[in-house]
């Protein structure tokens, strides 16, 4: 199968790029047909692997000239279909931009290319006692360019922030090929905060070609506690009490019983299999502060009904405590043929209400749900267990997922805390935002990409799509036009 693209366009690409940077055959394009949301697939028209700024400029200028859609891609670990290819478009892989360009030890920053892996930044600056704070669970594989596109978080965001708090500037190529530096090397920058608009924009506004990240000194001490509870409410209460005591933990994570059992069976982290919930709490800073906080937190945990509180005795045990949480997704993957990860954020105080709601929705749909929760910042990841082999089960799962997200919005939260909207949650955008907000998003997008060629059909739905979606909703989840393509 040959690429479904204009011959002149392809000829120009081949003139502008070395042959090895242009993948045209179906076999070569196949590995790029999906990202981490593998339920959505499309064979891209062509895959391009540039390694020079000027090549990216030329590609975006040709795409503009020939009206060809462009989907940029980092490592493809995203979970919302943000990098799902366009069948008549360019899949622009930034994988070859993989160099740490410089480390500025005076300013405490590093200039990196977008294809550098998240963890590789921290590894590169570790000899200086520094690190890059945001640590999404995929940090071994995901790239900093993808992190910028999705405003990636991690388990340490409550204290250290998201990507938007840890990136100071970026070089960006716009559709048409113009290059602009947004943000800046100073702490405050002139004009509107274009960098804030760009981070988390899901590849809709431009292609990032260089990034300056802020580096932090490694804390002198870090200790982790694990507490088990026989009610979820007890664990939720403990979270609120810890924050009320004036402590901001470096990490504060909760898992419910199905997630605990799955993780324990998988990595043997030492979790109590009979607990209704566990809390993992990491405290870091100066050794004196950490010791004082450990004492306060331990007694608060017991006050809230913890059955047991264990402190990691050494670094190995601390890593083991975390390994269960960090491997929770694959662990759940072992106990079910398939699972679907939801990414809502809720005000923490509504946790009990939301978990009860999820549990009754799950029985309504006859599906099992395991919950992992970034308890510190309210980001909830219900994992719906299903079997794609059973007819209709994936559709039921998606519907349950949508209902859970509606519940998150209803209690004052959001449909996505850190995974992005992408293709996956584009319909759910219709109940988070009204037409005025969506119009404003489209106007903002048009400033950067007036022809709508960057990642078309993702992140922000058209008003007509929402009209259709809302009309569908009236029928209580019964799709009236099942034959209409929904994505």
């Amino acid at each position: 199968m040959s690429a479904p693209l204009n011959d002149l366009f392809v000829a120009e690409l081949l003139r502008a790029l070395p042959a090895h940077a242009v993948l045209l055959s179906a076999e070569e394009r196949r590995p790029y047909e999906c990202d981490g949301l593998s339920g959505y697939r499309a064979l891209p028209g062509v895959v391009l692997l540039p390694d020079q700024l000027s090549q990216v400029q030329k590609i975006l200028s040709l795409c503009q000239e020939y009206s060809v859609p462009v989907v940029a891609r980092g490592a493809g670990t995203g979970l919302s279909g943000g990098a799902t290819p366009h069948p008549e478009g360019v899949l622009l892989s930034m994988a070859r931009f993989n160099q740490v360009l410089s480390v500025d030890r005076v300013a405490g920053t590093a200039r990196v290319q977008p294809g550098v892996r998240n963890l590789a930044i921290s590894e590169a600056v570790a000899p200086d006692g520094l690190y890059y704070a945001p640590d999404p669970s995929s940090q071994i594989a995901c790239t900093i360019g993808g992190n910028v596109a999705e405003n990636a978080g991690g388990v340490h965001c409550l204290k250290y922030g998201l990507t938007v708090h840890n990136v100071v500037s970026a070089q960006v190529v716009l559709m048409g090929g113009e290059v602009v530096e947004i943000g800046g090397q100073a702490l405050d920058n002139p004009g509107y905060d274009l960098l804030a608009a760009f981070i988390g924009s899901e590849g809709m506004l431009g292609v990032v070609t260089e990034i300056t990240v802020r580096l932090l000194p490694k804390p002198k001490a870090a200790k982790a506690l694990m507490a088990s509870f026989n009610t979820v409410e007890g664990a939720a209460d403990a979270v609120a009490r810890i924050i009320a005591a004036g402590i901001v933990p470096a990490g504060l994570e909760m898992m419910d019983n199905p997630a605990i059992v799955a993780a324990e069976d998988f990595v043997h982290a030492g979790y109590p299999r009979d607990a209704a919930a566990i809390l993992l709490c990491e405290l870091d800073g100066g050794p004196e502060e950490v010791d004082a906080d450990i004492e306060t937190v331990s007694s608060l945990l017991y006050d809230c009904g913890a059955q047991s509180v264990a402190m990691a005795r050494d670094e190995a045990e601390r890593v083991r405590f975390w390994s269960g949480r960090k491997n929770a997704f694959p662990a759940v993957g072992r106990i079910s043929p398939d699972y679907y990860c939801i990414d809502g954020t809720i005000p923490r105080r509504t946790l009990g209400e939301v978990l009860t709601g999820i549990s009754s929705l799950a029985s309504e749909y006859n599906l099992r749900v395991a919950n992992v929760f970034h308890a510190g910042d309210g980001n909830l990841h219900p994992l719906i267990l299903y079997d794609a082999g059973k007819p209709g089960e994936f559709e039921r799962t998606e519907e349950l997922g949508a209902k859970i997200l509606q519940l998150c919005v209803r209690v004052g939260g959001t449909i996505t805390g850190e995974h992005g909207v992408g293709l996956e949650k584009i319909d759910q955008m219709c109940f988070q935002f009204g037409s005025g907000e969506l119009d404003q998003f489209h106007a903002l997008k048009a400033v950067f990409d007036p022809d709508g060629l960057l990642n078309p059909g993702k992140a922000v739905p058209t008003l007509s799509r929402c009209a259709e979606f809302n009309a569908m909703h009236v029928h209580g989840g019964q799709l009236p036009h099942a034959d209409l393509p929904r994505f």
Partner: protein
Amino acid sequence: MHDFIQSLSVAVRDAAESGRALCVTGGDTKRFYGGEPIGDVCAMESYAGIINYEPTELVITAKAGTRLHDLEDTLAKSGQMLPFEPPAFGERATIGGTVACGLSGPARPYRGAARDLVLGISCVNGKGEVLKFGGQVMKNVAGYDVSRLMVGSMGTLGIITEVSLKVLPGAQCSVTRAFELSAQAALKKMTGLFTQALPVTASAWHDGVLRVRLSGVEASVNAASQELGGEDDPAGDPFWLDLKEHRLAFFDGPLPLWRLNVKPHIEPLDLPGAFLIDWGGSTYWLKSDASVETLDSMARSVDGYVMRFRGGDRSVRCGGLDGVAMRLNRQLKDAFDPKHVLNPGRLPL
């Protein structure tokens, strides 16, 4: 919809239709800042009050006209604070104006800027549409981050009506260490602090003295003081407050006050006038009648830019925007406020 918001929306729509400008005003404490305000006053001060504050969520939501001091007092009662330490420049300062101006105080390099702490914003754009972006939760990546885009926009993209902010526990204990140092030695020490794991929450040099503030639990602060050295400065707290509010003697006098935001560096700039270095070496405050061109080229030599902060000729444009970035800024203004109704000229575009 609240009557006030309804009439605000109508007022903006009318202004857009008739081609009049609106001068959006909170407590009128930062009138000196940015370009000359023009247009019919659109007063936000009466739309005040805290809408939601749950200390255990670390989030506060308030109407734009809420006084900054009232909001800070409310937080203090629960032992919490606004981490970005915003300057008020007067009793009447409002939270809406604070966010619109996007100014942050001495803690900014260590605890984040106004833009880092904003979680959600409700606003009326230049077409009179009532819009809501972001929310009351820490993590939210649905849609473009318009709430952060509004921070520092000087009310030129939309009239901020409500704002949600992340707050943090206040420090149990704060001490200031003082060192007698040249500007050069101070810069070396200040920039070194970026890569040292110490609980630093402010650092500034002026008149031969570097001051570093350490905050946290007492035992930690004491240990860090030992490690850092220097002398204890018992007048530390008032110093940081007076620096934030521009009440130090340095800020007096008729000369224009400039601000140079720069990349942290080690060789101090040889500026034409008295200066104070703040933010760990990434901001210079300067009293000078030098030309904007002179100061601009000095700022650019360290990857920065200059802005006229207070006094001097408000019509002189500065701020370092040009080329594609300037075009994008102007187009963004058009995307939010196509008729240029809202605070025209307050941002140097």
